[in-house]
């Protein structure tokens, strides 16, 4: 049977004396039990171990008769050919080839790490952070957690940096009415991203007096559904995340799908107006 290339490759990691002694039986073993990836790694690591423990290199076989007494060797380098490096026996790996192989393996490992790091950086986030889908829970649970959500106060969900707004109840709240809507439908809900579209500060909670949001950094002011009002430098309303209520009634926010807030074109373009003047902000 012809020795498979993989087996020859694996055994080439061992030092020559080891191969002379164990090579044949080792190849026989590999033929009976072809190595997988784990076994291949095991062999390479054992081969390196054999290289760093030369004292474990076996003596002659018992079957080979009494131990051979090493002959006194004549000077191995004749004067005439001084400086010529003797080549290793055919089939054996020279020290130089071994070093080359190790350098190659090191370079390969390094480039693999770079490649892995790059891919990890490009890999989208699915479970946490911006880009993930967040399951906020059932509306009933949200109302239990924050009863004022039914009467229009935004529910802040920190992991997604979002306000969940109960739109009809919120509009009523801003108009000064007391309405309780504990079970809005998905299209009556808004997920406002609490990142101010001006420079990215976190938009604070609704202020009690005006029922508006005013960013603390530069005063950009939004109405209760996130539309930009007169005050502040932001040029559009608060951005929104895609939102759905799944078959189990769980509110799901997808932070990979962002709808930019409407540009600030003027008072007449607002879809909702609260009773306070267009140009005032929360203090």
């Amino acid at each position, binding site marked *: 049977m012809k020795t498979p290339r993989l087996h020859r490759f694996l055994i080439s990691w061992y030092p020559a004396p*080891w191969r002379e002694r*164990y090579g*044949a*039986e*080792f*190849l*026989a*073993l*590999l033929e*009976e*039990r072809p*190595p997988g990836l*784990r*076994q291949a*790694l*095991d*062999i*390479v*690591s*054992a*081969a390196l*171990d*054999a290289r760093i423990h030369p*004292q*474990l*290199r*076996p003596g002659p*076989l*018992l*079957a080979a008769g009494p131990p051979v007494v090493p002959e006194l060797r004549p000077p191995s380098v004749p004067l005439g050919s001084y400086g010529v490096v003797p080549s290793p026996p055919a089939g054996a790996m020279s020290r130089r080839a071994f070093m080359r192989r190790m350098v190659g393996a090191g370079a390969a490992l390094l480039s693999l790490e770079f490649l892995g790091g790059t891919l990890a950086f490009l890999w989208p986030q699915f479970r946490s952070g911006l880009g993930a889908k967040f399951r906020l829970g059932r509306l009933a649970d949200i109302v239990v957690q924050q009863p004022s959500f039914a009467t229009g106060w935004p529910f802040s969900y920190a992991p997604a940096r979002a306000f969940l707004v109960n739109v009809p109840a919120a509009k009523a709240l801003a108009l000064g009415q007391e309405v309780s809507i504990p079970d809005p439908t998905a299209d009556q809900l808004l997920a406002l991203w609490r990142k101010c579209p001006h420079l990215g500060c976190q938009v604070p909670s609704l202020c009690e007096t005006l029922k508006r949001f005013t960013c603390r950094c530069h005063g950009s002011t939004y109405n209760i559904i996130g539309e930009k009002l007169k005050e502040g430098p932001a040029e559009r309303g608060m951005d929104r995340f895609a939102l759905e209520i799944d078959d189990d009634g769980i509110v799901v926010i997808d932070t990979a799908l962002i709808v930019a807030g409407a540009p600030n074109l003027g008072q007449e373009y607002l879809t909702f107006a609260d009773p306070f003047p267009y140009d005032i902000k929360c203090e």
Partner: protein
Amino acid sequence: MGDGPSQASELGRFAEPAMLVLVSLSASPKHGYAIMTDVEAFGATSLGPGTLYAVLARLEAGGLIEPLESDDRRRPYRLTAAGAAALADQLAEMGRFLRIGRMRLRGATEGADR
């Protein structure tokens, strides 16, 4: 026996596989593949081929096992007298360990019941 890598401590990470190989060879002489399948059968674990031969080289260098003559390429190994003695020592040590472990565990569970 203190000379050569016969002592478990000198075998390092190969101490446990060496134990498995010694136990396997104590039943009968075996070649590499037979040792592997035997260890899988009684040891509920598996030896990689590299590990197996690293162990065989160490045990052979320590005089605990010896290679036998063979017609085909697969060479069987046999436990030497020194190897049998070393294995007996190891098993006695493990027996002591087992006894102490069981005794302490019994004490611990009784203590927890109270």
